[in-house]
Each structure stands twice: as C-alpha cells, then as structure tokens.
C-alpha cells in the first residue's frame, strides 16, 4: 500500500496537471478533504466537546459550536458513576487473554495446516472456513446454552473470561490470514530446519514465528478491537456488574444517567481503540487488504 506514484489510474497524470483538469482536480480535492473532515471528524469533535457542555447547553437551539462553559466535571462523573476504571480493566483483561489464546492456538493450527499438513487437514480447514458463512446471530442461542453447560465437562462459564476467550479462538478468518502468510514462507527453510534435526515445535518457534511478526501483529490488533467492539456476546455471558465490558456497562447505565455523562463515558470507551488505530493504522490497513484481496 505504498503511495503509488506513476501507476496509471482512471485519469491520467497529464490530464490532471494541465489547465482545466488541474483546476477541477484541486477544487475536488479541497471539497473532498473538507467534506470528509466534517463528516468523519466532525461527529467525533461534537462528541468530545458535547460531553463538556452542561445539560442546559446541550438542549440549546441552535447548538453551540464551542462549549461556553466547559465542564470537565462530566468526564469525572462518568469515570466515577459508571465505575469506568473497573469496566476498562475488565475489557482490557478480556482483550489481552483473547490475543494470547488466538496467537497460541490459531497460529499453531495455521502452522499445522500450512506446513505439517496432517491427514484430513484440508477437510478441517474447509469446515473452519464454512463457519464464515454462518451469521453470528444464528449461533447466539445454542452458543449461549453451550456456555451455560459445557458438553462432557458440565462447567458453567457464565461470568468467566473463558466464555470470551475460547469462542474467540474459533475464528476462521484469522486462521486463514495466518495460514496464507505461513504458506508464503519457503519450504526450503522448513527442509533445512528438518535436516538440522529441529522438531516441529522448534521450527515453528525459531523459524516461522520470527518471520511472521507482521501478521501476528495484525491478528493481535484484530483480536483487541473485536473484544473492544463486541456487544451482544459479552452482554449475555458477562451478566454481573463486576465482569461487564465497557460497552455493555455504558448501555446498562444509559437509561438513568444524564446524556452528557453517557457521551463522556462513550468518549472514554472509544479512546483506546482510536489510539491503537492511530498508532498501528499501517499494519491494520495492510492486514485488512491482504486478507481479502489475493485469495
């Protein structure tokens, strides 16, 4: 995804750099930059500043552009009244565990499917990929019943972080991403490791994983954002106030809380993912596109 320079697109470079084309290009560019900033950054600005307004000012017509009398107290109230520290810690804890479980189990599975290729491996891969076609809503009820009473073990996973971590491992998209990346690692490297007498585990640890850092990063980021954004599943399997995630917590409190405080809480809840995105945007974007295009 490098800044493509020189590659021909719909409109030629020559047409854009000449007289009328140039005027149209620059007008369009300015319009789009301004328009997109308003459309995508505007609401976020509204969110951050709106949470600073008093209840009275929010209801004012026409709405004010800057808070007249900024009240950072709303953010403090949100933090205290909604116990955001606890909610954020819970979500962070689930996200970290989800990353670890996904990295260990999915990378191992992808390694096996890509390099070890045991018998029936392709059947298993096919069955995994088939789950991508099943909408999550169809599975929500039987999955919930399964979590209430795990087959054979008869454990109840309600309010246990495993109810979030283990279903996250069953993620065909990430296994597919990892497998495709492992596929691109030359077989000769595997053969060389084999000649040196390295075990499969050793090969994975010392050859495959160090080469796969970019894709492991992408999978980790996807896992964190998936946990952070998920709503219905954590709402169902984490019913206690002590185990709630931040999105569910805000939803639960939204009914009886002033709306500027709810918005302040939403801003705080959104902050971690936005910061992650701004730091890792290159990795996220390349991961998104490699996963879907060349398949």
């Amino acid at each position: 995804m490098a800044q493509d320079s020189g590659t021909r697109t719909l409109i030629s470079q020559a047409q854009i750099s000449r007289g009328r084309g140039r005027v149209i290009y620059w007008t369009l560019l300015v319009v789009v930059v301004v328009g997109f900033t308003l459309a995508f950054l505007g609401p976020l600005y509204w969110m951050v500043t709106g949470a600073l307004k008093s209840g009275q000012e929010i209801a004012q017509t026409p709405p004010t552009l800057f808070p007249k009398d900024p009240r950072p107290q709303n953010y403090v109230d949100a933090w205290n009244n909604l116990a955001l520290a606890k909610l954020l810690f819970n979500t962070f804890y689930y996200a970290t565990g989800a990353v670890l479980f996904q990295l260990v189990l999915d990378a191992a599975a992808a390694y096996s499917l890509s390099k070890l290729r045991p018998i029936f491996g392709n059947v298993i891969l096919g069955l995994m990929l088939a789950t991508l076609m099943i909408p999550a809503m169809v599975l929500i009820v039987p999955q919930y019943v399964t979590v209430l009473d795990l087959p054979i073990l008869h454990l109840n996973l309600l309010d246990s972080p495993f109810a979030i971590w283990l279903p996250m491992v069953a993620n065909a998209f990430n296994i597919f991403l990892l497998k495709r990346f492992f596929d691109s690692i030359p077989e000769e490297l595997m053969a060389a490791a084999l000649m040196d007498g390295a075990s499969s585990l050793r090969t994975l640890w010392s050859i495959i994983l160090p080469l796969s850092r970019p894709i492991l990063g992408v999978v980790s980021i996807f896992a964190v954002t998936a946990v952070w954004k998920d709503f219905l599943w954590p709402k169902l399997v984490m019913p206690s106030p002590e185990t709630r995630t931040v999105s569910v917590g805000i939803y639960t409190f939204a009914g009886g809380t002033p709306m500027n405080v709810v918005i302040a809480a939403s801003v705080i809840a959104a902050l971690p993912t936005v910061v992650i995105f701004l730091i890792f945007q290159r990795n996220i974007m390349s991961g998104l596109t490699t996963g879907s295009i060349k398949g």
Partner: protein
Amino acid sequence: MAITTVPETSRKPGRPPSPYSARSQRTSLGRKVRDNLTGHAFLIGAVLCFVVFSWYPMIRGIVMSFQRTRRGETTWVGWDNYWRIIADPSFWPAWRNTFYFTVLALVLGYAVPFFVAVLLNEFRHAKGYLRILVYLPVMLPPASALYLFKFYAYDPSEAGLFNAILKALHLPTSQWMQSPQMTMPAMVIASTWMNMGGAVLIYLASLQNIPGELYEAAELDGAGIWRRIVHVTIPQTRLILALLAMLQIVATMQLFIEPLILANGAGAEDSATSVAYLIYQHGFFQNDLNGAAALGVIMLVVLAGFSAGYVRLTAKQD
C-alpha cells in the same frame, strides 16, 4: 486422535509436497503416524474451540428448534416452535424491516464506498489522511458511536445536529427515531458511517491492482471517464464487488445493536424491530430459547437461499 491411525493407503494422492510428507514416503508407517499425530497435536486446541463453540452449536441450534424445554424437561415438539415464532405479531414486521434495511444499506453502504474508493484512488494528495478518516469510525465501539447519533444527531428538537443542519439549509426538520418513516433511513445512515471504512479500503486495494494499460487503451479508443469506469474499473473489480455484496448482505441481515440503542429495541410502531432483535427478545426476555433457535434456523435458511440464488446469478454471467 483416532484419525491419525488411518493406514497410509488412505492418504490423498496429489497432495502438495511438504518436507515432512516427502520424508515419510521413504520411511515406515510408524513414522507417518507420528508425523500426522504431531500435525493434529498442533491443530487440536483450535479444533476443540471450533467443535464446542461453532460446529456443535450449529447442530444443537437445529435440534433445539424442534424441542421445548420447560422446568428442566426437554420434549420433542415438532414444528411447534416455528408456528409459535411465525405467529408472533412482530415476525413479519421484523422481516420487512430487515429486508428494507438490507436494501437501503446496499444502496448506501455498497455503492457509496465504491465511488469513494474510485475518487480517493484518483487523488495524488492527502490520500493517507482521507484513508484514515474513512476508517476511523470503524474503530469506535458501536455502542459509543450509536449514543453519539442517538443523543446529538437524531435529537428530534432543533438542538439536534442533523436538524440544525437541515434548518440552516432551510429544509424541513425531521423527528428521526420518533418517526416510523425515518427510523430505518436513520439507522442506515448511522450504520454506514460506522462501517463503510472497511469496504473503502478493500476497494482501494483492488483498484490499485488494475493494470494502467487498460485505462490507457480505453482512453486512446476515446472512452470518457464514465465509460472507463463502466468498461474498465467495474469489470476489473467484479470479483471483489461480488464478494463484498454477499458479505454485506450477511452482515446487514444481523442488524441488532442499531435498533437496540437508537430505537430502544422495537422503535415507534415496531418500525425498528429486526429479526436479530426478535431472536434476542425471544431467547433472553421471553424465556423462549427454543423459539429463538427456530428463528435462527429460519434466518439461516433465508440466507442460504440468498447465497444459492446469488451464486447461480453470478455463475450465469461468467
């Protein structure tokens, strides 16, 4: 696992070579069994998670839809759950709303990202910035973004952002979520804003793979911008367009959090009830997990029908 003790004759011919399988051709059966065992040992963790949380629930959902559990006692009831769920007064409105949302979301959430991507691909400046902007909302937790829309954008008074804009443009203001007619369009706008970034990025990547010579040749033949889009851009990205259309339909059919937060569930006059919301309602409020499972199966069948028709349609074109 029992699988790994299968004799070597059952190995599929023509499998791509792997250093491990290459070696085992020369070595003993025991070696081969051990290599397979190692392979499955690496798979077992993920496979168990798939079994417990994906494959088994799939079957269990279908089984549950023909059973009824009351006071801990489970009995077979045939199609009773299906009849009960169809008789729910919200059943048909839920389907109507879901289809309406899917169609609106296809128009807005499918065509708009494509043209945005085509436009962005032409820019020689500010490309990275615009790409970040479009993707930024995708990173917000949906609950956060939807409260923003609910409280600020869709405020039915003139203090709401959208109404303030409409008023400034001297257009009639709207009741938004309080008006049954505007409920769905309002949800589609919020949903598109939150989700279109992913599609734009995928389109952008596929646009960059179009060979420039095709555009040059079209231009030499005298094709204008519009004809170049129709005859070069769209055919060249056809596969991705088709794939995303399918994914979009699967995603929009699961409309849930938008009605839950924006419309408190059902909305004015059942105008926001979606099939997914009805599943939630039956399963977790009316203590009717079996009915909810039945509705899940209906949803799966409808989607499978969609995909089958879709595959046939696209196969014909080729």
